[in-house]
């Protein structure tokens, strides 16, 4: 797979490097309505405040996939959209309206596989209080520097 927008090369990064953090705007009700329509996940606990009160989530909660989308933005900004080979997350906590999510990541491995120079790493998303929303891992390819 080509990686047209890669802005850094394999040689530029090291195990232990942190990815530049990404802090998102506060999560809004309108954003969850837009995300429901875009993604096709119309579970009302993400859009209808009455359901949230009924099931005891303390109001509506964000789609977990929206938070994974924030982390995806972090990764795609770092390696480019088509350079990600694997991306997985575990959902750890609910995100409420007004929460400010910060995504971060660390490179844990550099190696070659399938003829590509690859990095692997860990990622997470947490709110303004440091409460973890998702944790995950990724594998991506970076181009080698031409000498």
């Amino acid at each position, binding site marked *: 797979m080509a990686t047209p927008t890669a802005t850094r090369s394999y040689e530029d990064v090291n195990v232990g490097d942190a990815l530049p953090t990404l802090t998102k705007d506060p999560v809004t009700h309108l954003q969850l309505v837009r995300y429901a329509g875009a*993604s*096709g996940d119309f579970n009302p606990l993400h859009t209808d405040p009455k359901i949230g009160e009924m099931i005891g989530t303390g109001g509506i909660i964000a789609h*977990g996939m929206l938070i994974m*989308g924030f982390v995806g*933005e972090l990764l*795609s900004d770092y390696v480019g*959209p088509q350079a990600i080979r694997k*991306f*997985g997350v575990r959902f750890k906590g609910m995100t409420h309206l007004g929460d400010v999510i910060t995504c971060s990541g660390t490179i844990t491995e550099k190696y070659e596989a399938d003829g590509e120079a690859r990095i692997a790493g860990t990622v997470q998303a947490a709110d303004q209080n440091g409460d973890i929303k998702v944790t995950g891992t990724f594998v991506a390819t970076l181009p080698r520097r031409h000498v």
Partner: protein
Amino acid sequence: MFDTSKIGQSFAPFTYEVQRNKINELTAAIGDKNPVYHSREAAQAEGFTDVPISPTTPTMFSFWGNRQRGASMADLGINVARILHGEEEYEYLAPIYPGDTLTGTTTLIDGKTRQGSGGHSMDILTMETRYVNQHNQAVLNTRTTVVVRE
């Protein structure tokens, strides 16, 4: 409690046609302003054939493409109203572009029932979907783990 004899069962394949406007819409909702997701011209200027998919675009393939998603889960004995999303994983095998027609086949690959602390049991189920494009090329594998509280 789900029916453990269903582990290994696959469901009827579904198709999804990848659309540029839906990639725009999803990344706009996320607030990802990377121009390559919002304009074909911007994407081509960066060397892409067309607007590339964003990392979590595959969620649309399942929710919009798999019209039997709810029915498939109900068939496994899952109470769809009590599902929590536990894990999501993507393995990107080849580029996916607007105009591609993907065919997804979902299989229940793992499942177990656990006793929770309050005496309630919960089911933990993992479904894998393998996608091929219109050239029958494998392009994407996804794994979704859901927790169903009884």
